[in-house]
């Protein structure tokens, strides 16, 4: 068959229908975003207002070690979170993709369901577990592993646990797609050709599921780096992340220009990750844009 000459599209309705919605997105999304960008180059008035004078000083202020520490810390937490999600998520995705076909939708649903529930509530659940008199400490003491309760809550570890908990589904889904597409016969062929289990993993499975791995890692990294609730509830004053810094500058210090500058640094990090994601997805079929 010759290719369809005209790009046949489904909708029979005219294009201008999109206008109101797009207008809405422009007014209530793009304009506010531009506003934040503009303010990031203004400076703070004496009483918290904005002085419209172009200055890059807010961005220069971010070089201060205090801010630098928070930025670096955020990157570190997000990276560790991504790695842990991979370690937990890959076996899970593999087992789901290789389970009987009729079970797969249910198993995937089980993985996704927590994601669709209230994030605040899920984070709060960890507070119950990690508290001084929380379930984990009681459990450890009952077993006699420790004598006094451990400081679990308000630590970097608590933040990372909360982030892994929150974003694990983002890792499992693209990995599942990648493993599901991997022909099991390839694994058998490698086995047949004298590969050990480890060699099968490193020479066949990982290279062939690489697009899913890259996709999953980026999908976990993006929300982790920008998180606010998790470090706010589970982290202490010393495990602040960029999101908390933004909120702090806006609502507590009321230094809007500095807060805006922090926002745009964060946005730059996120957009880099997004671009990487679409690059990796465009080479194969992305898990988000199944074509």
């Amino acid at each position, binding site marked *: 068959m010759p290719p369809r000459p005209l790009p046949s599209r489904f909708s*029979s309705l005219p294009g201008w229908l999109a206008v109101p*919605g797009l207008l809405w997105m422009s007014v209530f999304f793009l304009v506010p975003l531009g506003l*934040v960008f503009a303010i990031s180059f203004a400076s703070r008035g004496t009483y918290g207002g904005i002085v419209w004078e172009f200055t890059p000083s807010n961005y220069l202020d971010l070089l201060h070690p205090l801010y630098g520490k928070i930025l670096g810390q955020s990157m570190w937490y997000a990276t560790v979170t991504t790695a842990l999600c991979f370690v937990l998520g890959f*076996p899970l995705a593999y087992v789901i993709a290789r389970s009987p076909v009729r079970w797969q939708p249910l198993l995937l649903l089980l993985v996704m369901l927590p994601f669709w529930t209230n994030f605040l509530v899920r984070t709060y659940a960890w507070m119950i577990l990690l508290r001084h008199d929380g379930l984990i400490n009681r459990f450890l003491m009952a077993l006699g592993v420790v004598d006094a309760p451990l400081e679990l809550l308000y630590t970097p570890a608590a933040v990372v646990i909360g982030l892994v908990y929150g974003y694990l589904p983002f890792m499992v889904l693209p990995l599942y797609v990648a493993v599901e597409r991997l022909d099991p016969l390839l694994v058998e062929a490698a086995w047949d050709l004298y590969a050990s289990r480890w060699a099968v993993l490193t020479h066949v499975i990982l290279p062939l599921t690489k697009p899913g791995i890259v996709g999953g890692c980026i999908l976990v990294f993006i929300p982790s780096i920008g998180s606010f609730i998790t470090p706010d509830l589970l982290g202490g004053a010393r495990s602040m992340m960029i999101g908390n810094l933004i909120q702090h500058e806006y609502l507590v210090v009321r230094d809007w220009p500095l807060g805006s500058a922090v926002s745009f640094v964060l946005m730059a990090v996120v957009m880099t990750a997004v671009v990487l994601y679409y690059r990796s997805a465009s080479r194969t079929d992305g898990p988000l844009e199944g074509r």
Partner: protein
Amino acid sequence: MRHSSAGLNVVSLLAMLFLYGPIFVLVLYSFNAAHLSMAWRGATLKWYAALMHDEALLAATANSLLIAVVSTIGATCLGGLIALGMDRLPGRRQLLIEGTLVLPLVIPEVMMGVALMLFFVMLNMPLGLTTVILGHIVFNIPLVTIMLRTRLRKLDPALGEAAADLGASSWQVFRYVTLPLLRPALWGAILVAFTVSLDDFLVTFFTAGPGATTLPLKVYSMIKSGVTPEINALSALLLVLSMSCVGLALHLQRREV
């Protein structure tokens, strides 16, 4: 032949335990009679009963539902029209629109909250229910559009042509072919938008004034002001609420023809 070894299964089981353990504990302890301790003191419904008598909480519930309903309706209309309209635009413009719509989904929510707050403050709009609803529509439009577009893309373009060939006008094609085929996805989108709006904390946090407390805001302030057993009960209720919305959405999507 299956290749998943025992090791893989164990890790998967642990991962599942990790996902559901905390939720389970939370729900379980919402029935604990003990007041301030994690020790189990027998089952009770008194924390749920206490919720029913909390006037502020009932007001927050009403706010949450109002915001969710209005923003879902708004976003479904606006986002649905984008999905239907952009189908007919040239490819490059479609890419541009898609990019604009993906942006709100990927940028940190803190940023969206901050940007909206700044915008409203600069316009001298008093923060309150209105500003929250305006903001919720912003993050729900992309969700609706993307879900509907995914479905539209899966439909055979020949179906629309067949309808036109059989004498249907543009409107009739929409009414008798596009809309029925889109219906499950539309219901799915509505439920997802509703759930996301109901659960949203950050955008609401920045755009709600003192008068517009929602359920998540209430939960947050309860957590911050000290843990009380009522939070467990409220949290459990919120979990059940969003899970049932999603369950329903998935059920509807499953029936796609």
